C-alpha cells in the first residue's frame, strides 16, 4: 500500500473535491442559463435564473406541437427540430461507423506492419488533415454536384454525400488507435504468427477485441465531431427538410427573426441525445483503456 500521512490525505481530498465542485459550478452556469431561458416567456433573454412566469411554449414548439397562448394566439413550430435531430444522428452514426472501419484497419497497419513509405504516409496524413474544410467548401460542392449526376444519392442535398465526405475525418482517430495498438505487447503478434494466423486474422481475432474500449471512445469522439460539423454540411444540405441540426439551428438566430427562447429549448432537446450516448458509453470510457494485451 501507498504510504501517506492521514491528515495530509484528508486536506488533499477536501482540496480536490473543492476544486472540482467549484469548476463544475463554473462549467454548468451556461447550461442552467439556457434551461432558464427555455422556460421564459417570449424570445428575449432577460430576467432571473428562475423564470417568474414559466411557460412550456418553447418546448412545445421544439417538440413540433402547436402552442396556444393565454390570449388565444396559436404559435406553430418555426422549424422541424426533431427531423433535423434525426438527420444529424443518422448521418453521425453511419459516418462514424465508416470512420471507425477506415481508421482501425489503417491504424493496425501503421502500428504493426512494415511497408515502404509508412512514415511518409503518416506524416502526410497529419499535415493534410490540418487543411481547413471551411475553405474548401466550393470544391467539395463541385465534387458532389458532379457525383450526384451519376449516382443520385451521392448528390447535393442527399445525406449520402455528407456521410461520404465525412469519411475523410479520420487522421486523429488513426493516431489515437495506433497509439493503443503500439502499447500492446509484440509477443502477441509473434504468437499469432507462430499459430499460422494471417495479419488479417491476427487483426480480426486478437487486436480488434482487445481494442474495443478505445474503439468506443473513438466512435463517440467521431460522432460528436460529425454532429457538430458545420461548413461541409451547410454547403451540401440546402433543403430545410434535409438539414442537420448544425445547419438548421442557425436559422433561429437571424437578426430579422431572433427566436432566442425557441432556440434555447431546441438546443437542450438536441443536446440531450448526445449526453445520453455519453452516459451509455461511460462504461467503456472509464474502464481501463490498456488492460494489457498479454492475458491468458
Amino acid at each position, binding site marked *: 500500500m*501507498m*504510504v501517506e500521512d492521514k491528515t495530509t490525505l484528508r486536506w488533499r481530498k477536501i482540496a*480536490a473535491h473543492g476544486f*472540482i465542485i467549484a469548476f*463544475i459550478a463554473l*462549467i*454548468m452556469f*451556461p447550461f442552467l*442559463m439556457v434551461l432558464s431561458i427555455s422556460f421564459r416567456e417570449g424570445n428575449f*433573454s432577460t430576467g432571473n435564473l428562475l423564470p417568474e412566469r414559466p411557460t412550456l411554449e418553447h418546448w412545445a414548439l421544439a417538440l413540433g406541437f402547436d402552442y396556444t397562448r393565454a390570449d388565444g394566439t396559436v404559435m406553430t413550430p418555426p422549424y422541424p427540430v426533431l427531423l433535423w435531430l434525426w438527420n444529424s444522428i443518422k448521418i453521425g452514426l453511419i459516418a462514424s461507423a465508416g470512420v471507425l*472501419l*477506415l*481508421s482501425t484497419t*489503417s491504424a493496425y*497497419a501503421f502500428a504493426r506492419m512494415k*511497408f515502404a513509405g509508412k512514415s511518409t*504516409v503518416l*506524416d502526410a*496524413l*497529419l*499535415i*493534410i488533415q*490540418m*487543411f*481547413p474544410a*471551411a*475553405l*474548401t*467548401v*466550393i*470544391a*467539395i460542392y*463541385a*465534387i458532389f454536384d*458532379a457525383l450526384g*449526376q*451519376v*449516382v443520385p444519392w451521392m448528390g447535393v442535398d442527399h445525406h449520402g454525400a455528407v456521410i461520404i465526405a465525412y469519411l*475523410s475525418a*479520420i487522421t*486523429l482517430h488513426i493516431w*489515437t488507435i495506433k497509439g493503443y495498438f503500439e502499447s500492446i505487447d509484440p509477443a502477441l503478434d509473434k504468437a499469432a504468427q507462430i499459430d*499460422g494466423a494471417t*495479419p488479417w*486474422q491476427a487483426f480480426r481475432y486478437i487486436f480488434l477485441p482487445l481494442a474495443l474500449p*478505445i474503439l468506443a471512445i473513438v466512435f463517440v469522439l467521431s460522432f460528436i465531431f460529425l*454532429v457538430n460539423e*458545420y461548413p461541409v454540411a451547410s454547403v451540401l444540405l440546402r433543403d430545410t427538410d434535409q438539414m442537420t441540426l448544425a445547419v438548421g*439551428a*442557425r436559422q433561429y438566430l437571424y437578426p430579422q427573426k431572433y427566436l432566442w427562447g425557441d*432556440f434555447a429549448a431546441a*438546443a437542450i432537446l438536441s*443536446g440531450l441525445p448526445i*449526453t445520453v450516448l*455519453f*452516459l451509455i458509453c*461511460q462504461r467503456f470510457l*472509464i474502464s481501463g*483503456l*490498456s488492460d494489457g494485451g498479454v492475458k491468458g
Partner: protein
Amino acid sequence: MDSTVNTPADRPVSLLSGSILRWAGLGGIALIFLYVVWGLYLAGEPVFAVVMFTLGSIATVLFGWARFYTWRFVFPAVAAVALFILLPVLYTSAIGFTNFSARNLLTFERVQDYHLARMDKAEGSARAFGLTEDRRLYFPPTADQPALITDPLTDAEAGNLTATVAPVEAPGLQAVREVIKNRAVLQTLSVTAPDGSVLTMDGLREFAAAEPLYILSTDGVLLAKDGGILTPNHKTGFYQTADGQQISPGWRVGVGWQNFNKVLTSDGVRQPMLQIFLWTVVFAFLSMALTFAVGTALAVILDWQHLSHKGLYRVLLVLPYAVPGFISILVFRGLFNQNFGEINMILTGLFGIKPTWFTDPVLAKTMLLIVNTWLGYPYWMLLIGGFLQAVPQDHYKAAALDGSGPVRNFFAITLPQILPPSVPLLIANFAFNFNNVVLILLLTRGGPDIPGTIIPAGSTDLLGSFTFRLAFNDSGQDFGMAGAISTIIFLITGIIAYANFRVMQRVAAKRSARG
C-alpha cells in the same frame, strides 16, 4: 471463418471459395468504379473522372495482387483523405488562378447560349390586337397587311394559335379590361401568321414577332441586330463591344497570378493580413496550451485513487463536450452580451464592472479564449485519462517511498509518460484552432474591426474567417480571390504543421532519450 483459424483441414476449401468470392468482389468494385468514371466523363467532369479512374485502378491492383497485402489495410483511409481533403485543397487553389466570381460565374458556352437566347421585337412586325366577344384574337388591317383572326383561345394547341385572313367586316371587340383578365393565358400564347411569322404578346395592345438579339458569326463573334458586334475576350472573360465596353454576364477564365498580386501588393489587404496572421498563431497556441493544461489537470485529479464520486464528476465535466459546439457558441454570444448578458449582470453585481466583451479587442480575444477552453478541455481530459491508465503504478510507489509530493510526481513521472503519445494530437489541435472558422463566425464575426483598413478585417479574425468575410460575405462572391488567399493559408498551414511536427518530434525524442 472461425473454423479456418482452428482446423487446418478446412483451409483449402475455404481458401478456394474465398478466392472466388474475392475475385467476384474485386470485379464488382472495378465495374462500379468504371460506371462512375464513365458517368462523370459524360457529365462533362473530366477532372473528376480521371481522379476516380486513378482511385479505382489503384484499388483493383491493391486488392487483386497479394504483393500489396499490407496496403489493403491503409488504402481506404488514404483514398478518403485524398479525395475529400487533398483534392478539394488543390481544386480550391486552382480556382485562385481564375476570375471565378459572381460576375464570372458561368462557362463560356453557357454565356454564349445566354446571349443567343435573348430575343428582341422584330422591326415593323408589331400588330395591334383585340379580344372578340367569342374570345378570338383579332388583328385589324394595317397599311400593307390584311386583318387576321384566330380560333378561340380555348382551342390553342401547345400554346399556339393559327391566324387566318379575317373577313373585311370587323367583329365586335371587348374592352382592354378583358385582355388584362386573360393576361396570363395571352402571355404564354404564340400566334402563327399566314406568312409564317410567329407573333407573341408585346404589351397590352400589341403582338409582335421576336427575333434573336444576336446571331453567332464565325470566330465566336456575335453580330447584333443594330449592326454592332460583340467579341469574346478570353483574357477578361467578357464579351466586349467595339469600343471596349464589357457585357455581363462573364465567364470563367484563367487569370494567372493576378489574384495573388492583388493580395500581396494591395496595402489594404496585406497590412491587416499580417496582424491577423499573428493573432491566429497566438490564438491557436494559447487554445492548445489552455485546453491541454486544464484537461490534464482534471484528468490527473480524477485519476487519484482516493477521490470519491469520480463517475459523477466525470459526467458533469464532460458535458461541455457533449453539447454541440455550434449551440454552445451561440449561447455564449448571448451570455457575454455587454448590455443584457447574464455574465455582465453577475460581474456588475459582484464587482461593479461591465467589461465591453465585443468592442474592446483585448477583451474580445480573452472571451474567445475562455469560450474555446470551455469547449475544448474535455477532449484532453478524456484522452489523458486514457493515457494515465498506461502509467505504471510502480513508479508512484517508488516515488512515495522517496517522499515525493503530488506536484513533483506529476512533472517527474506523469507528464513524461503522457506527453509522447499526445504530441501528434497537440499538433492537430493547434492546426484545428488555427482554422477554427466556425467559432469566430458564430461568436464575434471577427469584430471589433481593425481601424483604418479598406477591407473588412477584424481584430479577432483568424486567417480563415477573414477569407470567408472578404470573399463570401460583403461585396459579392469572389471565389477566385478567396481561392488565392485560401492557397496562401494552405501554404502557411502546411509549413507550420511541418515545422511544428519536426520540433515536437525532436523534443519527444530528447525526452525519451533522457528518461
